[in-house]
């Protein structure tokens, strides 16, 4: 299983899964750990990439669900994607 670790030069502030509504930023790394989700880390990473969560993409949290502020609706460049906070923990942003 290949998990891409953010290099030292990248400034990693937080995971998107911890951000509040209205957060704006850029993706610095997609880094799925084995326990992040119900699917293997490599599979989660590829699914996130296929939905446009790639390094450098602009993200903004537009909406949150009622219970536990979950799931979140995220603007990724020009598209909007619904995702649970659990999986959004694999998206590192600054």
């Amino acid at each position, binding site marked *: 299983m290949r998990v891409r670790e953010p290099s030292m030069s990248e400034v990693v502030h937080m995971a998107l899964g911890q951000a509040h509504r209205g957060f704006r930023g850029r993706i610095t790394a997609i880094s799925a750990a084995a326990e992040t*989700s119900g699917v293997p880390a490599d599979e989660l990473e590829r699914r996130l990439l*296929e*939905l446009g969560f790639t390094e450098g993409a602009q993200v903004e949290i537009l909406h949150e669900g009622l219970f536990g502020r979950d799931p979140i609706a995220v603007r990724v460049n*020009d598209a909007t*994607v*619904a995702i649970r906070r659990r999986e959004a923990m694999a998206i590192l942003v600054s």
Partner: protein
Amino acid sequence: MSVASQAEPLHFALIGTPNSGKTALFNALTGSRQKVANYPGVTVERKSGMLQTPGGRSVNLIDLPGTYSLRARSPDEEVTRDFVLGRFKSEAAPDLLLCVADSTNLRLALRLVLELKRVGLPLLLVLNMIDIARRRGIDIDLDKLSAELGVPVITAAAVRRGGTDDLMRRLDELALATEAARAEAAWQAPTAGELRAAQREADRIIAASVRTPAAPDTLTARLDAVLLHPVAGLVILLAILFVMFQAVFTWAKPLMDQITAGFDALGVLSQSWLPEGLLQSFVQNGVISGVGSVIVFLPQILILFLFILLLEDLGYMARAAFLMDRIMGGAGLHGRAFIPLLSSFACAIPGIMATRVIDNPRDRLTTILVAPLMTCSARIPVYTLIIAAFIPDKTVWGFASLQGVVMFGLYAAGIVSALGVSALAKFMFWRESPTPPFMLELPDYKLPRPRSVLMGVYTRAKMFLHRAGTTIFSMMVLIWFLASFPRPPEGAAGPAIDYSLASWIGHAMEPVTKAIGFNWQINVALIPGMAAREVAVAALGTVYAIEGGKENAAQIGQTLAQHWSLPTALAVLAWYIFAPQCASTLAVIKRETGSWKWMAVTFGYMLALAYIAALITYNVAAALGAA
């Protein structure tokens, strides 16, 4: 074009990301010349249609399920992959791939194009919804885009009149080009690194060929501010569902009355035309009243599907899944299960088939298990008949009709038990395994195209009538046969049905059903009720009609009120909340899960719930002195 080349139709396939307007384009290109079938071995719908190019060439166009990648994760996406790669034994790979993209949202589509290039088939990129993109000021340099991608590019606006003319003209050129040799197929499931590289390349191409204005689509953002609001969004969702069910019952009423009147007239006509005897009984009691009692639900099913298709085309269904995800997650269901479960209110069969959008096998299985608990429209006749006969038509709490409250209670009982069963299934079967992800693109809102929606409704109507004409019709003939044979001996006293096979079966089941207050007539109706629930009403009609003379069939509600006690009626209602579902639903479960085991599990647990619910209801009602 020579006559010879016209004889051999070309095979083109539409492929694209979800929400690319692929199906609208398919409808615009093929019109009503569509055929819906299944792919071999799977229940994924295979939609194909014929079209004629301006040059006179026939093309067989196939609409493939939407996907972000050929790296398939759900049965739907596997079909797309296998078809494109020519892995189906029964059909060759297509001659041309038309990759459809939403012009306002090119990022993911262009990555898919780059992946499709590796398949080695002739490829064309169709920029759909170009009208919306232009209105928003998005400027796409087509030549540049085509040169960068190395793929021909054409624009289209599937929902506009004449919006596909350019594409049709281009198809002739491409039809000739497809005769050129294909490239070597070099597709392999992309790794994370390859996905990153491809997306970077796609982003570079977009930067080079597309100019986007600073202001994005503000309408969608403004609507979402309300519709995805944590509280207001849920309230609006509930309001939409409320309106939907009101419409299903009130709008359909006049049409249903007309259909009933029509079949009644037909029955009278057959009575006057046919000589008294077996043939008349067969046509009137077996065929006309049987089939009529099922076709009467067509208006309700159409209205429900009209709502579902409208909400889907509007782009609201994905929002509903977003709003419901956490609530359904508490019961161990996936947010995406909302759409299949909603469809199950019309009929569990399309509902179970719609679970194909759930990529996780576990979530899919849970949804399939509980979908038959949603009150499908086939249960409506059983409910309305018994409610009208036994529940007084009075107002409670100053505004609500008691009959309506009972109806709502029956629906609520179905939903609550579905949540309970799925929570239990999660606890019993999947306690250890972690929750799978929920990821869903929320498309921009779009006005649905009436023609496309109507075509969808038409397809459903055709499917329903086909079912009514085959399964349900043959069951009605069987019931009529059981209720009519053997004939009573000459000069026998009492109704003829007392001598029939149906009476014998009904009486044989009495020891078991006595505890839940069912008499032998109900037992007889339960048997065809397993073929299709709505047949139970018709079967009761047939049983009581043959028993008491033709005039009774018209007032079956009154007949029931005379023959049943209130606890019995309530027990029948409780039974039908869980009623072991119709044979077609079981067949679909078997096909979708690929196992007899899950079909047996569903049948078994529903039968047990139905018996227990009826047992409790009957005894409680009897103890309270309702008798």
